[in-house]
Structures are given as C-alpha cells and as structure tokens.
C-alpha cells in the first residue's frame, strides 16, 4: 500500500513539475478562465495543504474538505492533523477549533480580507484581473499555469509569487502555490472535485 502511495505521490509531483512554456494566445486562455468562472456556481473538493519550510527542510501537511458557493461563501474544514473550521460568509468569518468558535467581521481584519480576496479570486479564476498582480501565462502538456507576481507593497512583503494551475480543459483550479520571499511555500491541491452540485447555504455558518 505504501509503495502505491509513494508511486502516486511521485506521479503527482512529476505531473505538476512538467516543463512549462509561455502561452502564445493569452486572450483565448483568459476567455476560457472567464467562462469557467461564470459557469462555476459551487465547488466541493478534498484538499491537501502542504507548508514547505525551505531552510528547515520541513513539511507540515494538513488535509480536509473545501466547499465554495457563489458569490462569497467558503468553507475550509481541516480534518488532519486536527479538526479546525473556517467559514467565510460574505463579510463574516467564523473560526472554530476544539475550544471555541470565534466570529469576526471581515472589514475589521485586513489580513483576513486579503487572504479571502486571494482565495476567492483564485478559486473562481478571476485573480488575473486583479491590479494587485502582474500575471504571466504558461502551459505544459497537461496544465496551464498562471504566475501572479504581487505589485501591492504589503503583499510583496510576504509573497514572492502565487502560482495557479488549471487543467487543460480549464474546468477548475487544480493547485495553488503561494511562494514566500524566503522560498517557503504553501501548496493547496484539490482532489475528488464536484462542480455545480447542490450545496446548502446552511453549511456556511458555524456555531
């Protein structure tokens, strides 16, 4: 079992580490992404988050379930290494851990607002429209990759770039990679994805 798992992981790494070349027709790609964004109403998916600490050669892996519903509803449910829930419902955020549930106003917390904006626009694929980034477009045999280089002064202090990977049919974001200035990186890989399945509004709250 472990051998198969290792092989699967290796294939995943090889899959995403293909040679990328610049996209010639960026207008067509932008149209595909916009069309994907318009047609995506809900997304349900499992996710694996990996934090790579380059200087310490360490990885911190978390796994969970992710739900998105247009326009501004997000639910991140972490199951490992421990249970943790983040719910974003328009301008409200709930964070629930094993001890308590906290509710915040998005506008009162700049950091949350910034993270939420990136996450939402990345999930919806509209991030390339943002004036906070300079975007470069690449493709391999299997993927499109958008490299987003921050222009905003505050964001530049934390991120070197954000990479977004789409499948070649541009149906959804496959992977998101946030590279920090010291080359630490956080990657989010989505799997077992369900697009436009019915999702109740009731799950976008936490008590």
């Amino acid at each position, binding site marked *: 079992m472990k051998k198969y798992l290792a092989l699967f992981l290796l294939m995943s790494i090889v899959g995403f580490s293909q040679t990328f070349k610049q996209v010639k027709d960026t207008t067509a790609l932008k149209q595909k992404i916009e069309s994907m964004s318009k047609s995506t109403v809900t997304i349900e998916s499992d996710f694996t988050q990996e934090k790579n600490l380059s200087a310490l050669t360490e990885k911190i892996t978390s796994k969970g379930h992710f739900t998105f519903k247009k326009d501004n509803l997000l639910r991140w449910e972490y199951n490992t290494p421990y249970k943790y829930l983040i719910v974003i419902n328009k301008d409200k955020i709930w964070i629930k851990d094993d001890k308590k549930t906290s509710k915040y106003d998005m506008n009162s917390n700049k950091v949350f607002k910034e993270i939420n904006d990136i996450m939402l626009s990345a999930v919806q694929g509209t991030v390339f429209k943002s004036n906070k980034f300079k975007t470069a477009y690449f493709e391999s045999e299997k993927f499109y990759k958008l490299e987003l280089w921050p222009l905003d002064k505050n964001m530049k*202090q934390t991120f070197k770039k954000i990479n977004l990977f789409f499948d070649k049919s541009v149906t959804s974001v496959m992977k998101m990679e946030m590279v920090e200035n010291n080359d630490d990186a*956080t990657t989010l890989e989505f799997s077992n994805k369900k697009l436009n399945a019915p999702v109740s509004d009731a799950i976008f709250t936490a008590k």
Partner: protein
Amino acid sequence: MPRFPTRYLLLSSILILFAGCAYHRYAHPHTSQPLVITNDVISPLIPQDGKSVKYKASIDVLNKHFSGIILLKQMDSVKHFVFITELGMKMFDFEMKNNRFTPVYVFEPLNNPKLIGALTHDFETLLLLDLYGKSGEYNTCLNGRDFLRIKEGDLVSIVEREGTVAEKRTSFVKKRKDTQTTYTSSDKGPYEHIALKQYGLVKIYIDLTKLNDE
C-alpha cells in the same frame, strides 16, 4: 476615601500575600546541593537528534487569540521555532543562537516590539532554554517535592521534575510570580502538553499539544 479604592487595596494586598507565599514555599529547603543545568538534569523539549517536533498551539495575548502549529527543530547548534497558522501563513520564526533568542521573521501585523518581546521571553521560559548552562541548586524538602532552584539576578526559577522531565516551572521576579508552566507527559512520550500563564500587566496564555506523526 471612596469605597472602590479600599476594596482594590485589600484585594491587591491579598494577591501580593499569595504571591509571596508561593515564593516562600521554596525558600527553606531541607538540603541543598549545587549543580549546573544540562540536558541530563532537565530533558530538553527540542530533540537533539535533528528531528523536529510539532505542537498544536493556542496563544492569547493582548486580547488577541492566535492558533496554529508550532515547529521546533535544532539544526547544528541553532534552535528554530516557527509558528504557522492553520491556513499555512507563517506568523513568526525565531532562532536561538549563542544563547540569544532573535526573531528571523515576524508577520507584519504582529510586528509590535512589546508583543515580540513578551512572546520571545515566554517561549524561552516555556522551552526552558534560558536555564541550560546556568548554575543552580538541587533542593530536597521534608514536606513536599524536591526541586531545582536557578537564580539569575532578580529572576528565580523553580523546576519540579519527574526523573529528568520537567513537570512544573515557576518563575519569580523580585519574589513575585512572573510565569507558571506545567508540562504533562503521557505513555506517548514526555512533554505531550504544555501550558504557560504569564502574570503581571501583559497577560499571556500559551497552550501547546504535541502532534504525533501518524
């Protein structure tokens, strides 16, 4: 004199009396023997074999609540201490080199000297890093547990152990309780749960639960 200040004074006196009592509990040991604090005297929290250890962390400071994962690792002679939120954002990264605890990275909204000073002090205390290499005393008691007493200037630290594993550390500044840390071990290993309470004006609570690799 208005009623409120009288009550306040009375309450303060009682608190000072209790704080004083806490210190005097350790003031008259039965026997006392000098020693130097080494890894053989107090088992370190950071593994010495280059492996890392991770804790689920909850920090309450200056009316703010933070949670995430703390990673501790020693590489060569440098001890690293990194705090990451559940979303993967690095909040701070401290390192300890030549007995100096310095911030390598601090997430800008947290970059407040008072906050960073308080956190570095408390994590140094919690991880017992300020004690190694210092001279202390091994004290025995007739009624109560044996303890280690380490004095440096106005700071006195009392460490109670089970074998060489710390179970409780109480620090006093000018005989007033400054911090109290409790360490809980289990059949999985030492230091499975750690809780620190900082007394005084800047109140801090730190709660760490070890994340065991599955």
